[in-house]
């Protein structure tokens, strides 16, 4: 069955675009991009993460343009990304250099450096705050002034603290396997389509740009029995990491000659997953493996779910869909899944006519076209 060209929709489409604009403007309210940026940071983070482009201002613009539709905002940002040249690859980012804003462990209460709750909804009452209905800018400024004055009055230690990874502490104790640095150049799924079986770098890249809801749902499915991974969270950390790039022409430059270009905020998770392995004497013993999750911005649920799926895909298992890399990796991308589902509402007149013809034939007692 081929496609046929039809026409006649031009005026209707123009009128439809007018209706779209009307719907955005009719309430006579204008939301500033900076307002979205300043007050909807988690939404901005989610759009950046799913679009795989760290650009807070553009993500806020996309949210405004899409009138809050996540799938549309991600589509807009992904499309814009395709118009920009890629000039640089960063030096390898290590999250030990993170300026930590939040760091918790569900595995140990006494982690080196301590547990920092930072800024989180986890301990807030989930009750609607009706004070926000009539929020006063003046009161907010007073609160901020008090907060800043308290900061000024503090005389903290002179040194900045950086926090060791919990997993390294356990590796030092010999409880987790140590891995040497693996400098194999990663594959880039934006340059070459993934082929199965995939490499680890491809899986992590697909997972980290996956749709938050899809990644979370599949991670949850694994916990509920449609998979074999049920981890304990070793560490969740949120904070900003510095990004450096090398000079494009100075070939013999030292590390100190690289450019610092700014920071990006990340959420990183290590999950500890118990596995049974056979030792040298063929006796079964318990070991831990690590599932890895990461996301642009602060998106802890997605990063945790990613760490579950990372570990699922490390251990393929025919019985469980969450351990099937084709099932997971080909269905979690926001643009691919929403694009394919929503294309179903576009004209399929010829295809459907063909199906109708078949049904009519059958009803008449004849044979269908397909048989």
């Amino acid at each position, binding site marked *: 069955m081929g496609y046929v060209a039809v026409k006649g929709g031009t005026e209707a489409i123009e009128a439809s675009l007018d209706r779209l604009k009307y719907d955005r403007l009719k309430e006579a309210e204008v939301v500033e991009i900076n307002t979205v940026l300043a007050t909807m940071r988690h939404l901005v983070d989610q759009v950046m993460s799913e679009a*795989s*482009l*760290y*650009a807070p*201002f*553009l993500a806020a613009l996309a949210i405004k343009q899409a009138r809050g539709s996540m799938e549309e905002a991600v589509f807009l940002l992904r499309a814009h990304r395709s118009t920009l*040249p*890629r*000039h*640089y*690859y*960063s030096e*390898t*980012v*290590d999250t030990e250099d993170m300026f930590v804003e939040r760091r918790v462990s569900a595995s140990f*209460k006494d982690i080196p450096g*301590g*547990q*920092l*709750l930072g800024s989180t909804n986890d301990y807030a009452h989930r009750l609607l705050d009706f004070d926000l209905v009539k929020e006063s800018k003046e009161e907010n400024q007073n609160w901020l002034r008090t907060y800043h004055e308290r*900061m000024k009055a*503090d005389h*903290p*230690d*002179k*040194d*900045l*603290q950086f926090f060791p*990874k919990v*997993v390294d502490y356990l590796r030092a104790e010999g409880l987790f396997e140590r*891995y*040497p*640095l*693996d400098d*194999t150049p*990663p594959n880039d799924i*934006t340059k070459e389509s993934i082929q199965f079986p995939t490499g*680890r*770098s*491809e899986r*992590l890249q697909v997972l*980290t740009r996956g749709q938050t809801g899809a990644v979370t749902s599949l991670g949850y499915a694994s916990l509920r029995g449609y998979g074999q991974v049920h981890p304990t969270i070793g560490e969740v950390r949120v904070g900003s990491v*510095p990004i450096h790039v090398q*000079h494009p022409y100075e070939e013999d430059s*030292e590390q*100190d*000659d*690289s*450019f*610092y*270009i*700014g920071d990006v905020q*990340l959420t*990183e998770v*290590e999950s500890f997953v118990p596995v049974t392995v056979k030792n040298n004497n063929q006796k079964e013993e318990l070991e831990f*493996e*690590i599932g*890895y999750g*990461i996301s*642009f911005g602060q998106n802890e649920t997605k990063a945790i779910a990613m760490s579950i799926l990372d570990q699922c895909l490390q251990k393929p298992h025919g019985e469980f869909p969450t351990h099937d890399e084709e099932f997971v990796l080909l269905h979690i991308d926001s643009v691919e899944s929403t694009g394919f589902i929503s294309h179903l509402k576009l004209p399929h007149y010829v295809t459907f006519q063909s199906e109708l013809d078949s049904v009519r034939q059958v009803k008449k007692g004849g044979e269908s076209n397909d048989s």
Partner: protein
Amino acid sequence: MKRKQRTEILIQDGGALAKELAESVMQNYEYREIEEPHYGLTMIKMRETAKKSLFYLGEVLVTEAKIEVNQSIGIGIVIGMKEELAEHLAIIDAAYRADLPVTATWQTQLETAAEKIHQQKVKEQAEILKTKVNFETMEV
């Protein structure tokens, strides 16, 4: 001062010092724009902590500019949409590459700014450290 340290100071300072230093070059030397500020992407390469392997996290939007001073080309790159800062960083980078005498006078200003940034971060971290949990094990 090496490029890594000075670009960190100039970007984290917010742009005021970069503007001041770049203007001191623009007022005393001829300069030529090789590439006006434009947007591009930098792909972030990460090392994951489970198996210590490398992967690509995603791209970050950057503004980049190239400017020539005294036959040396300087590059300014910064995350975000910051045309003016990219231009100033490129001029400062060119000044260092051309080894202009004026760069020797910048050391103190850069060190002062670095100290101020450091103090600000320490204070910010002190606020975060107030959210550290002080566990007490209860006797049952």
